[in-house]
């Protein structure tokens, strides 16, 4: 159990720290990225993805348990996600990091995320 928790805590700490330090939790930075007035975060994201591609292509099969499949909710969900990203500048993980950084408005985002998840669960259960 301790090992299991450590395996969750270490990547969580690292990802939270890096995301927070790079500026992905800053609405202004994200907005400047999405309006192409500052390409720093785009560049960081692209390098990160390319790094992962290279690692997974060279070492990857053992690190990737399964291949994924399409499902019909993929695109509409991504559209909702895209609208929201422009409005609030936070995804679930980023909202958590924002709260950790002491942003009180992020609590409203986090509460909304909880409601959105609840709505989806409720809709799924019906």
């Amino acid at each position, binding site marked *: 159990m301790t090992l299991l928790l450590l395996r969750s*805590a270490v*990547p969580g700490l690292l*990802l939270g720290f890096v995301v927070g330090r790079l500026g992905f939790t800053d609405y202004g*930075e994200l907005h400047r990225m999405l309006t192409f007035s500052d390409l720093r975060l785009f560049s960081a994201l692209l390098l990160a993805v390319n790094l992962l*591609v290279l690692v997974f292509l060279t070492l990857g099969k053992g690190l990737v348990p399964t291949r994924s499949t399409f499902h019909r909710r993929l695109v509409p969900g991504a559209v909702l996600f895209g609208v929201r990203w422009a409005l609030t500048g936070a995804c*679930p*993980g980023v909202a958590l990091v924002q709260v950790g950084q002491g942003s009180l408005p992020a609590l409203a985002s986090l509460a909304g995320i909880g409601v959105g998840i609840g709505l989806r669960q409720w809709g799924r259960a019906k």
Partner: protein
Amino acid sequence: MVAWGLGFAGTATLYAWLPGVPLGVSGLLERSILGSGRKTEAGPAAGGGCGVPKSASAPTSTSACFGSETPTPERLPSLVFGVSMMVGGALAGWVGGQGWGNLRMAPEFHRFFGDGWAAVAVLFGGGILVGFGTRWSGGCTSGHGLSGCGRLQVPSLVATGTYFWVTIPTSLLLERILR
């Protein structure tokens, strides 16, 4: 994707690329440690991220806390992961000299949506969209965008392309209409 990134290098300076290294390492660590042994339905979740874990005993990650459509008995690792991200954020804020209890977002946000309850309503309403959308599509920026694209998973590439094609025009519209 690699060619796209290399082409992009022409317009970006080296310093701008360097922060991608720790981000990529974080994503790799999340995928390789958290992802081992997991089986999933949607793209990003095949190694963690905002997905749909089917393995009850395996740990979950970023928005598996949020993105899992199928509740698993093992919620503790997800909870620990989420709390750890908050602690990581707190450390980042501390290192960056940010004070806790900041009541304001970035100036751009308040320029678009004002202050007070209107801003809170936008954040809360936007949060509902992201919570619903993340569950619906099975991923978000880290799940689909980072780890899913990093593994060249076609559904993640489609989802990431979709949300960028929606969010960029939306941001440009915000800039043009609400400035």
